[in-house]
């Protein structure tokens, strides 16, 4: 029988690996398998994985760049804030100075006005005082004249008005 002959043939081969009758079969199927794997890998799997890895790398790079940009923006914002603060301080100081100057000017003006008023009042008052003083002097002269006249009359003398007036004027001057 053919199968028995084959049996004998196989039995003499201790290692199935060394049975050349199976070589063409193995080599054929190996080549088919390798070609299939090669096409699956090079057409589908490897480009896809490469794309995913590249995309991931790109995403990471982009994220880092975005973070860098945001950091820069934050720094810029801080600088702008500090600048604004400094500007505001300068502006405030300027406004304060301006207000002070304005107030000073107003004050000076008012003081001048008040001074003028006071001067006018003082002049007026002086005039009034001088008038009063004059009036008072005249009254004192009158009173002195009449008193002197009466005193002279009471002591029994007689004095004429001219003499008395002269005497009183002399006294008052003194």
């Amino acid at each position, binding site marked *: 029988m053919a*199968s028995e002959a*084959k*049996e004998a043939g*196989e*039995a003499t081969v*201790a*290692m*199935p*690996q*060394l*049975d050349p*009758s*199976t*070589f*063409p*079969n*193995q*080599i*054929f*199927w*190996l*080549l*088919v*398998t*390798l070609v*299939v*794997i*090669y096409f*699956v*890998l*090079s057409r*589908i*799997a*490897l480009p*896809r*994985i*490469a*794309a*995913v*890895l590249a*995309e*991931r790398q790109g*995403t990471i790079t982009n994220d880092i760049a975005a973070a860098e940009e945001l950091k820069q923006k934050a720094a810029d914002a801080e600088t702008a804030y500090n600048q604004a603060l400094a500007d505001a301080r300068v502006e405030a100081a300027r406004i304060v100075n301006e207000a002070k100057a304005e107030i000073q000017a107003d004050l000076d003006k008012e003081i001048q006005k008040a001074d003028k008023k006071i001067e006018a009042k003082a002049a007026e008052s002086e005039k009034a005082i001088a008038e009063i003083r004059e009036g008072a002097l005249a009254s004192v002269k009158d009173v002195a004249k009449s008193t002197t006249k009466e005193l002279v009359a009471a002591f029994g003398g007689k004095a004429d008005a001219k003499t008395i007036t002269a005497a009183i004027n002399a006294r008052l001057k003194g």
Partner: protein
Amino acid sequence: MADKAHAEEGSGLVFHPMDQFIVKPLFGDGPIHWYTPTNVTLWMALTVVVIVLMLVIGTRRRAVVPTRSQSIGELAYGFIYKMVEDVAGKDAVRFFPYIMTLFMFIVISNFLGLLPTAFTTTSHIAVTAVLALAVFLTVTVLGFVLNGTKFLGLFWVSSAPLALRPVLAIIELFSYFVRPVSHSIRLAGNMMAGHAVIKVFAGFAPMILLSTGIGLVVTPLSILAITAMYGLEMLVSFVQAYVFTILTCVYLKDALHPSH
């Protein structure tokens, strides 16, 4: 033949460590032509299926933040890509799909072969010889096409003393032609030996059915040995695929940059 032999030895221990390597037709029991679908066909097809699952189905979502299955595919991609780049140089990256094909086929075949009752395609010298010869021929042709006669400088060690150079050239030439032999036998031998050893230990395991006294010692020991060998074989499966791939990269580097 195997069934008959098994029937004869039904009473004793059964040792057929090499039966697992027999190439059988999938359907019927006829002669094996080159086109006959055999267990080789089945396990190679399963290898293709696993690779498609890992690298195509696993990455179908193309997520920027990878899922677990996608991570496995990316890991394999990165592992081999970096190996090609580091070992063979940046200009070898155009050969990356070929090297990736080799690595994926060998590593998946090795691991599928570790499944109980599986057939290990990479334990056959016919398969590994084709793989190694393909690398050898590609590298040799590529070396001459890219570098012309300068490729022969690979055998002329210009850093050695002039008197030694002819001797070294013969040694280099010899080692160059031994490359595909060692390249293929290393892989097939490792896979075959490990599987055969596991089978031998497995043959001792039913000892307890024959003799309770000896069996009490031998059976647990052999089961332990199977487990240990299995663990070792997992390591060997990966390491041999790695070694085959990295040697391919080293040979490719010789073709691209033949100067020592």
